[in-house]
């Protein structure tokens, strides 16, 4: 009997053990910001050119400005009253001179050419005419509130500007780059007593706590890309001038007393804009390279080996440029030089990127300004990047990183870029701002992008 009691006691102990074993749950289940960290991000300001402005698919529009890496950083850092110069749909950009806004992907594979072996995407620019309420000249903003915002915008980056424009440009006419968006974003003249203020002066007025600055890519891109308006390629900013302007800019940014973070320049020649259109004749039925009688690919006229054919060449080829005379749809003209980057020009571009980046490194090292290595990060994308089961590459349209203009990153690209900046910010300023949950970020993009109606 004693033994039975002993055994029952044993059984009870056993049950206690059984119910007590559970997983230790941490009290903190995701990173929470401290007041100092919030303070650090409270007065965030961005300066620079295209990508940092949130420009993508050939336009600046609210939809993507809200997903730009600066906006994501502001969100991660819990910045309040964060305001950007939100442009209404379909946005302002490189096609606006002709009355168009953002680029859209109509078909992943053109249904009019059903025999294509390789998909044949159809991209179009959204015409302003489709949006009669959109007034690109007088009121391109999403609301009067944004247009009349009493403080400088937190994001003062301007697509299409050069390095010296941040310190010198007040209007399009008083700038070196002549970017049309200068007037939109800087809103000069400001109400009295401020008058004409440059991007830097506006940033300084705001008394920033943190300045993000990414400039220099457009100094090279403007030279390398096809320009529909100015047919003559402007020579790129010489490296000596770039270094001088950049050093001046860094000194100015430092003088505000804010924490400053900058980024170097990606290798633009890796971008789909320079790598999507092959230099050979493409069979319009299969969308694969056409072959001559000996089974060899046929180079486009005007293209020599080693040339990069730019994305806009597609339109020219459609009109018969570059096709040898034996092709029925040839117009007899070679592919224009403007849509080809020859070896010599490629070397100029590559050398300049190296020179600019060397200058950025040494200037920032001297001034103890942390540099986000965007050059290396974009190279990682070129070599295919993986995170949490997601694969991102530099392939046009399907790669996920580059938007439809083949140069500027997508919303997904911005989420990845944000995390690179955060890593540098966290390690340089001893804060621990949580990185962007990229998977959740793209989950929210799918609703803004494709208007899901039923799950």
């Amino acid at each position: 009997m004693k033994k039975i009691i002993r055994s029952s006691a044993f059984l009870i102990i056993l049950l206690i053990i059984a119910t007590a074993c559970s997983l230790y749950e941490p009290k903190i289940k995701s990173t929470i910001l401290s007041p100092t960290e919030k303070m650090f991000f409270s007065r965030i300001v961005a300066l620079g050119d295209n990508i940092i402005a949130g420009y993508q698919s050939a336009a600046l529009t609210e939809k993507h400005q809200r997903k730009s890496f600066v906006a994501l950083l502001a969100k991660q850092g819990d910045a309040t009253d964060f305001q950007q110069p939100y442009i209404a749909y379909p946005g302002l950009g490189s096609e606006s001179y002709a009355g168009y806004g953002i680029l859209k992907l109509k078909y992943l594979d053109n249904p009019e050419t059903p025999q294509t072996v390789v998909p044949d995407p159809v991209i179009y620019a959204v015409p302003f005419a489709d949006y009669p309420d959109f007034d690109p000249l007088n009121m391109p903003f999403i609301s009067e509130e944004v247009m009349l915002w009493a403080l400088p915008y937190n994001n003062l980056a301007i697509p299409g500007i050069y390095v010296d424009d941040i310190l010198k440009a007040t209007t399009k006419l008083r700038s070196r780059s002549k970017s049309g968006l200068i007037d939109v974003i800087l809103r000069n003249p400001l109400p009295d007593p401020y008058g004409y203020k440059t991007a830097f002066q506006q940033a300084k007025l705001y008394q920033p706590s943190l300045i993000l600055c990414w400039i220099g890519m457009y100094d090279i891109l403007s030279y390398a890309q096809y320009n529909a308006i100015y047919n003559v390629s402007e020579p790129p900013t010489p490296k000596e001038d770039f270094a001088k302007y950049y050093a001046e800019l860094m000194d100015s940014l430092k003088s505000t007393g804010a924490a400053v973070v900058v980024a170097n320049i990606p290798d633009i020649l890796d971008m789909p804009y320079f790598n999507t259109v092959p230099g050979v004749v493409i069979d319009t039925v299969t969308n694969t390279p056409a072959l001559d009688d000996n089974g060899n690919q046929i180079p486009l006229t005007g293209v020599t080996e080693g040339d990069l054919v730019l994305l806009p060449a597609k339109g020219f080829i459609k009109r018969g440029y570059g096709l040898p005379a034996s092709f029925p749809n040839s117009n007899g003209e070679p592919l224009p030089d403007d849509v080809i980057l020859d070896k010599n020009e490629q070397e100029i571009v590559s050398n300049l990127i190296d020179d600019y980046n060397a200058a950025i490194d040494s200037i920032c090292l001297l001034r103890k300004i942390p540099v986000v290595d965007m050059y290396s990060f974009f190279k990682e994308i070129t070599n295919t990047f993986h995170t949490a089961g997601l694969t991102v590459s530099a392939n046009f349209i399907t790669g996920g990183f580059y938007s439809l203009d083949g140069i500027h990153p997508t919303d997904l690209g911005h989420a990845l870029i944000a995390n690179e900046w955060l890593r540098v910010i966290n390690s340089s300023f001893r804060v621990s701002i949580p990185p962007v949950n990229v998977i959740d970020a793209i989950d929210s993009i799918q609703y803004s992008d494709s208007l899901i109606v039923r799950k």
Partner: protein
Amino acid sequence: MFKKLFLLLFLPASFVLASGFSIYEQGSRATAMGGAFIARADDPSAVFYNPAGISQLSGWQISVGTTAIQPKFSFTGPSTMDSKLYTEAQKNVFFPTHLYLSYSVKPWLTAGFGFYSPFGLATEWGTKEHPWVGRLLATRTELQTFYYNPVIAAKVTDNLSVAAGVSLVQANVEMEKDVFFTPRNLFGHSKLKANTTGLGVNLGLRYTLFKRLHLGAVYRSSVTLNFDDGEARFTFPITTDPIINNEVSSLFPAKTKAKSKLVLPATFGLGIAYEATTNLSFEFDYVYMGWHTYDRLKVTFADPVGGEKETVSPRNYSDSFSLRFGLEYRLDQHFTLRAGYLWDYHAVPSAYVEPTLPENDRHNYTIGLGYRLKSWSVDVAYQILLQDDRNIKQSVNDFDGKYTGLANLYGLTVGYAF
């Protein structure tokens, strides 16, 4: 550039859980002794642990039971997003059951039959409403195996018995995860479902020295499971743009045939048992599992999915082993107390740990009680599995973080001797 078209977005995740995904708890008496039962093997569950052991059993014997497995796993990370983001796997309870029969045909010949599930389990992360951060790697994975295992055991001498058996194996697998259609920024869901059968053999040997010292050896062959007739389903949300809906339906078949192959590992075990007194006995076992058979998971589709006809994910498991120690103390003619400890070495190399199998080295403590009355026996067991936390860096999926886990196992087996 378009050649690689349509993305590498579909890399399927793997099967399931446990030193690899084995379940060694196939009898509550053995479970209570840390699974150290190869040398002892003196109840009908010997069909699984060491079939040579059934030659000790007289007349007809039957036993039936189950082990309720209640795993709890969590993941903290991924470090590239939020190193403190904590996700707990959905709590599920599994009931792998076992049934054994033995019949002594002649004094030297015993026949037996076992039904058990030595591989399996399931993992589930996030819900449809609240998808988790690893949704592109795995959301729900389930594998079940059922072994139907007749055996024959023979006493070669008074001290030596040998056994052999064949196993008909039935397996069901389901794997679910989300897929991302990059050009249109859309999340879809994929579900792979397959079942098949396979064959295996098992061999056993048991030798007694000086009446008190028992030695046992057991071998269970690998089993090749060819999932030739599986089914893959892809579902995407409907959008307002019919062009996108068409693209999705042409790239992701709503339903297609899928093929895959899985080789369940071979097992080899050695045991030594010692009867210290008439009431107290010990056993120590070493069990080796050839997990290297799971080197990759390849799924082939009948119709291309996202432009791809097959997907391959490397698994690269390595062989693992467990050390098992158990003791049994007979209180009186009715009650028996048991306890044990076992250490399980991981099968998944660090770089390949992913959410379908958040595995690592495990310490297990077991305890149990047996009750015997006339021809009846009832055995209960409790096992706590404590897994070492595993910090993953540089995983092949770029999904680094910390996996933690434990499991409570409750066993109940009822036996009857005719």
